[in-house]
């Protein structure tokens, strides 16, 4: 089932045997007064195949993170169905979902001094076996310890086990969160911007970790990224969102194309082949050129990534 090639893009039509199946999904947030807003996600239909890495990309505010939360069962869809392993998501309990699907959030702000091992151990929560008489003390079974050990080895945080999470760097913390998700022993891993705010070496670490997990654990991975190159190099398929609608889904070669990007992002970029993989590689042109080519006033392509960074640093 290890879908390593782009040929699996077409298998979306075969709905049976997909890990997640999304049919006509719509979602909108409510205002505090209970009024309904514009659709954040509108009529999305696609599926996530077993063992693939699906990237979700799109401009800021296109609903990427919201889609991930809806897929994780954290937000209830307004319309449409999500089937997890063939069964409707709403028909499963939160614990059942947690045993099949793990979420790595975009940022992890822990204010209390928990150790790395304690944090990873929290991933065992959906598998806990608690009894009323011991008040939850000594619940960790040998199996729990094993899972945590394996998860920490795989995410390469074993040497940090006794450190406090708050003392770690951004890249280390991200790996701890992935280890915590792995301790859940999920079949599906959902990641929200796993490489955001990381230096290039940590980006590389995280990306190769995700690729390794897919091949070794046979994990199905859905990852949201604003980085088109990450999506292109590491994903089997890419889903492009624009204003809550699915613009295109398919192999990176089919989606990361100048004409598609122009449609989705409203600007021109340079797309060539990656020297190692031959997959599409996106480069930002120098701003004046882009301005002239697009014939618009002050649309600097760099301003998007900058505004994103500023928004998150608040």
């Amino acid at each position, binding site marked *: 089932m290890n879908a390593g090639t782009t040929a699996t893009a077409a298998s979306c039509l075969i709905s049976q045997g997909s890990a997640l199946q999304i049919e006509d999904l719509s979602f909108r947030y409510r205002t505090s007064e209970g009024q309904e807003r514009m659709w954040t996600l509108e009529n999305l239909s696609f599926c996530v195949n077993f063992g693939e890495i699906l990237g979700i990309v799109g401009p800021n505010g296109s609903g990427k993170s919201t889609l991930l*939360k809806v897929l*994780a*069962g*954290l937000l209830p869809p307004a319309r449409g169905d999500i089937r997890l392993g063939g069964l409707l998501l709403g028909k499963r*309990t*939160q*614990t*059942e*979902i*947690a*045993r099949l*699907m*793990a*979420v790595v*959030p975009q940022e*992890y*702000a*822990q*204010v*209390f*001094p*928990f*150790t*790395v*091992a*304690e*944090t990873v*151990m*929290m*991933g065992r*929560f*959906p598998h*806990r076996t*608690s009894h*009323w008489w011991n*008040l*939850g*003390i*000594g*619940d*960790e*079974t*040998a199996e729990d*310890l*094993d899972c*945590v*050990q394996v998860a*920490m080895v795989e995410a390469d945080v*074993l040497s940090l*086990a*006794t450190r406090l999470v*708050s003392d770690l760097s951004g890249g280390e913390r991200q790996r701890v969160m992935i280890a915590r998700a792995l301790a*859940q022993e999920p079949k599906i891993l959902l990641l929200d911007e796993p490489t955001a705010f990381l230096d290039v070496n940590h980006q590389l670490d995280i990306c190769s970790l995700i690729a390794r997990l897919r091949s070794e654990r046979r994990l199905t991975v859905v990852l949201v990224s604003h980085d088109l190159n990450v999506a292109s190099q590491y994903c089997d398929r890419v889903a492009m969102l624009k204003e809550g609608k699915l613009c295109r889904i398919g192999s990176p070669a089919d989606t990361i194309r100048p004409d598609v990007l122009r449609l989705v992002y409203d600007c021109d970029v340079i797309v060539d082949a990656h020297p190692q993989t031959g997959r599409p590689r996106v480069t930002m042109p120098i701003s004046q050129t882009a301005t002239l080519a697009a014939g618009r006033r002050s649309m600097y392509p760099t301003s998007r990534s900058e505004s994103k960074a500023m928004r998150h640093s608040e």
Partner: protein
Amino acid sequence: MTSTMMSHRVPAWANSGAVLTLHRWATVIGSLLGASIGVFLLCVHFGPTYVDVRTGVSAMAHVLRFDSTGLDTSETIMLQIRLPRVLMGFCVGAGLAAVGVTLQALLRNPLADPYVLGVSSGSALGVSMGLLLGVGAAFALLPALPLFGFAGGLFALLLIYRLAQSKGRLPIHSLLLAGVILNAILTAFIMFITSIMEPNRSAGLMAWLMGSLTAPSYPALAVFVLYLVAALVMLMRNAHLLNVLTLGEETARSLGVETEGVKKQLFGLTALLTGAIVSVSGMIGFVGMVVPHAVRFMVGSDHRLLLPASLLVGGMFLAVADTIARTIMAPAEIPVGIVTALAGGPFFLYLLLWRKDRML
């Protein structure tokens, strides 16, 4: 347990303090229990009237034999005044620390404290209204006053939570500011109530508001202890949920926690505890913030250990503070709230000013 599991090799980190083990739990709780008994005996020993150790031992022997006949004056002081008062102080301190731990985890904020956030003021307002309406003095109608305190505390807690909820987690300074303002408003109402009461009743109310412990009758103490133990056991049962809740609400839900139900239950328990505590001892500040902080520093953040350890340390802290309050100006007494505020306030400021990096 099969033999294969018994012979299982435990990873190195599991026994090096990285995760809570039953052994560490038992060691910490065992030693704290021992310390608590020591502190308890010392607090009973010290008081405005000197009671020598032999009298103390003979008084204790009476307690153990359930025999109250043939007591002399010093023995009566020990049994009727000091022993119940120290017990009460210990229970109130334990309850306040438990409320502090729970609030900190729920609001994901290490500076949360029922007094600072105005939850205690809410309870105090409820109890004052109860007194104004004539719901019986002190213990005549025991469940009634805590119930008023519960209602007031719950109201304040939900208000604070709504404020803290606006963006998932309120920055610490905004939360504290909200607490200060809520405190000011609620205190204004309490002042209004005291001003329209008869002078002799309002004087008692003022003393109670400042946070003071009195020696309760044994039946009253027993009811309070039962109430407290029930609430604390319920909290302890949720300790592992508190751990997961500190990851943030969405992550907690993605781990299978039914967060809405859990939060309602925990808020209810917190308000019940605060209501009961405030109704017997008034507003004693900072115990709920200082104690969990110090304990977390020593034993780590796992709430399965943090909660019971804070409970015991909180009990010891307030028992000692109350001993200071009743001996430092003997034969006069000062409200114990003054002692805890003088000890806890500077500590709070220190955390706020010099440990910012860890708070935000």
